[in-house]
């Protein structure tokens, strides 16, 4: 029997909905979740669609492993991004994705715009648009509480936006389980633009797999691999904040807004300190037996009594080293505030750090801003978050994101907006982590590491580097050699992992699910007979569809660049192993394009590549640029 998917299409303008079948060949060529979302994004959202208008579509997707015993599954949400105008796509762990699967849906497409504020309640096949006037302006935590009370069901899973999204902050996220967030590229802003406060979902249907015995054997094998992994204990104890001290030791922890890679106060704000003084117990995503999240409480000081889940490394590093703040409690309050307002903590911190650097250089002063912009000022950090979320005063400028804010301040400010294609760069220093830096350059959603996550460059395994990527040098983060091949491989891999919708910490960083295992998992789930090579090609296909979407919006090699600072300013001497490094952009891009089979001048796929990937339909799109034939 063919394995088809079920799609729920909700027309918000007309309060109508219908279910559609996703044919098996699409399920096989795009695998699910991110892959299927990208297919739909390309084919259903024409070029130049207004990201915040009714014609943009917001697409939720789950993978075939959601709602099973696989340790740590997620959901993907995609649209044209109001931040970048390109691929908007973000995923989150927690429990929402599994519940969507229990409700029997593989994809949910939201179209149009509701005339009245609503929240969507989906219980299996039943769909309700419920009035949400009373929820307007409520923060993320209250929205969770109020919807669960209204539906009288503590187990209903909620994906919601906070006031930031409702006020049009361009980097607002979609929040589930309070803090598990599809944060990047402004998907919350798109949901709020459709007049939808939340999507509450509840399912009662069992999820079945085609070969239970083989599936269980695979899960046990993966769990054993994870438990024996050298990082297992520290990941469980510290979670992702373990990276703060290790990146600092490498001289690659973004500090003082990329002016250095070494944060002297790292030990005061580290994952180790959180574990010793703040953490109460582990928390976890759905069915994950390698739980890395934590429930914390602040026990002393002016912020005593604050509790919640987290934090993860990116926001923690962003609200400490990036803004030069050595007060851990202030960082925890800042992260909590971002979570309650419902906005991307990384984007918010970048906006603040950028202003602080502009102030340091006299390009935009405290007087201009109306707040004291000296480095690490705790009141400023918290005040700016309030102003941003409500678009008041200087916050109105920052709420469009660092790139747009710098453009409005003036050309002298633009080099200090640390973004790629409009999306803020993460907490890893591209000069000291060159594979990651290259990943930022070419990522379809902009300056973010999760499209590639080329952790192998941190391994130091030279023999394996030689074998897999043709040079031993690829195994060290400060080298540029082999990084084009490395990033291509990891991008394809991450596209597959996102399409199964499983956690990259375990599947990629801990190497729990290489292509072979991914194929075996998918086959045990569906009864298909896909090979590792089929999956690798599917990953490549997804990357090329995303590139095609970006090309239709005018993207080419000229846009695949980091801010010039990384190319011209060597990392200072306190950065230890990374001292003196700059980012060798062009040489890495050349290698990357060549490995991908993209043209050197434009960084575009050729016709022959699109044919090899079964993407011929893209060529016939009238908005698609004219591309070269290429060698077959």
């Amino acid at each position, binding site marked *: 029997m063919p394995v088809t998917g079920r799609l729920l299409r909700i027309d918000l303008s007309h309060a109508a909905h219908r279910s559609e079948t996703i044919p098996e060949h699409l399920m096989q060529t795009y695998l699910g979740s991110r892959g299927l979302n990208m297919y739909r994004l390309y084919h259903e959202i024409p070029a130049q669609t207004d990201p915040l208008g009714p014609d943009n579509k917001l697409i939720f997707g789950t993978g075939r492993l959601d*709602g*099973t*015993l696989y*340790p740590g599954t997620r959901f993907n949400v995609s649209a044209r991004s109001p931040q970048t105008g390109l691929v908007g796509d973000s995923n989150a762990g927690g*429990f929402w994705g599994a519940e969507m699967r*229990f409700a029997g849906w593989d994809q949910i497409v939201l179209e149009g715009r509701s005339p009245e504020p609503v929240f969507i309640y989906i219980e299996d096949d039943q769909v309700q648009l419920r009035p949400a006037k009373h929820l307007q302006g409520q923060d993320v*935590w209250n929205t*969770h*509480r109020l919807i669960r009370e209204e539906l009288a069901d*503590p*187990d209903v899973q909620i994906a919601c936006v906070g006031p930031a999204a409702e006020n049009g902050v361009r980097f607002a996220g979609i929040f589930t*389980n*309070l803090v598990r967030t599809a944060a990047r590229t402004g998907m919350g802003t798109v949901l709020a633009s459709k007049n939808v406060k939340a999507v509450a979902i509840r399912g*009662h*249907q*069992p*999820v*079945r*797999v085609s070969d*239970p015995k083989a599936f*269980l054997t695979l899960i046990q094998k993966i769990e054993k691999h994870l438990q024996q992994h050298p990082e297992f204990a520290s990941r*469980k104890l510290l979670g992702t904040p373990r990276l703060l001290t290790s990146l600092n030791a490498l001289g690659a922890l973004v500090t003082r807004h990329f002016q250095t890679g070494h944060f002297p106060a790292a030990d005061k704000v580290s994952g180790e300190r959180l574990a010793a003084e703040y953490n*109460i*117990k*582990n*928390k*976890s*995503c*759905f*069915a*994950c*037996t*390698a*739980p890395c*999240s934590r*429930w914390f409480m602040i026990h002393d000081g002016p912020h005593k009594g604050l*509790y*919640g*889940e987290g934090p993860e490394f990116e926001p923690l590093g962003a609200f400490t080293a990036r803004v030069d703040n050595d007060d851990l409690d202030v960082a925890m309050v800042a992260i909590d505030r971002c979570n309650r307002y419902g906005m991307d903590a990384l984007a918010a911190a970048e906006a603040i750090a950028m202003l602080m650097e502009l102030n340091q250089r006299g390009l935009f002063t405290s007087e201009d801003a109306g707040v004291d912009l000296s480095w690490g000022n705790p009141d400023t950090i918290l005040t700016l978050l309030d102003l941003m979320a409500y678009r008041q005063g200087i916050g109105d400028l920052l709420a469009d994101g660092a790139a747009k804010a710098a453009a409005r301040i003036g050309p002298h400010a633009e080099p200090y907006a640390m973004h790629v294609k409009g999306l803020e760069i993460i907490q890893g220093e591209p000069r000291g982590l060159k594979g990651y830096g290259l990943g930022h350059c070419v990522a379809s959603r902009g300056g973010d590491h999760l499209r590639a996550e080329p952790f192998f460059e941190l391994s130091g395994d030279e023999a394996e580097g030689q074998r897999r990527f043709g040079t031993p040098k690829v195994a060290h983060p400060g080298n540029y050699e082999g990084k084009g091949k490395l990033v291509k491989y990891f991008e394809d891999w991450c596209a597959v992992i996102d399409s199964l919708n499983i956690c990259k910490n375990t599947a990629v960083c801990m190497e729990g699910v290489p292509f072979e295992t991914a194929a075996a998992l998918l086959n045990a789930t569906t009864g298909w007979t896909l090979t590792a090579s089929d999956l690798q090609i599917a990953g490549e296909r997804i990357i090329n569809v995303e590139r095609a979407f970006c090309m239709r919006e005018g993207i080419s090699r000229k846009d695949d660049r980091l801010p010039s600072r990384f190319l011209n300013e060597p990392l200072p001497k306190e950065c230890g192993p990374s001292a003196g490094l700059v980012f060798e952009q062009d040489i890495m891009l050349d290698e990357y394009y060549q490995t991908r089979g993209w043209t050197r001048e434009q960084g575009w796929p050729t016709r022959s590549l699109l044919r090899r990937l079964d993407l011929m339909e893209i060529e016939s799109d009238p908005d698609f640029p004219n591309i070269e034939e290429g060698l077959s």
Partner: protein
Amino acid sequence: MLIKQITVDSSICCGCRACEMTCSFAHFEVFSTEWARIRIAKDELRGLDVPMVCQQCAHPACQRACPENAIIRNPQTGHLDVDSDLCIGCKRCGVRCPHLAITYVPDSGHPLICNLCHGAPECVLRCPTGAIRYESINQFLARLRFLGLDPTPSGTTPSRTQPEGADT
């Protein structure tokens, strides 16, 4: 012999629900919280995760509530079995359970009561934090004493006051 049960220390439960998935898969080869004999009750805003599972009562209220005597104790492990031929699906057992640890098969309406996987509970094997264990209640209490923990807020599962006349 020593009667063991699944003990619960909710203070360290991470709320992953792997136990629910393991249970439904071990017994029915499906993944479903509806088909699981163990459930995690959550109060998300307070970070509370509480596994709810049969505590092997000495004088089970569910057994006494059953009008058909369909709930029978297994002499080997002490677990309760439901005789589906006798069960009429009246749901009185679940209503009376002081631990709210009984769920119902979605299609037949028969109760799902933990049967300890006949002596080796799969959920316990998969629990990543040790919040649920298969041990005697005395072992559980001894461990909490050893760790200096107060058992009342966290273990084993919260029970409610027995309704008046529940025994009759």
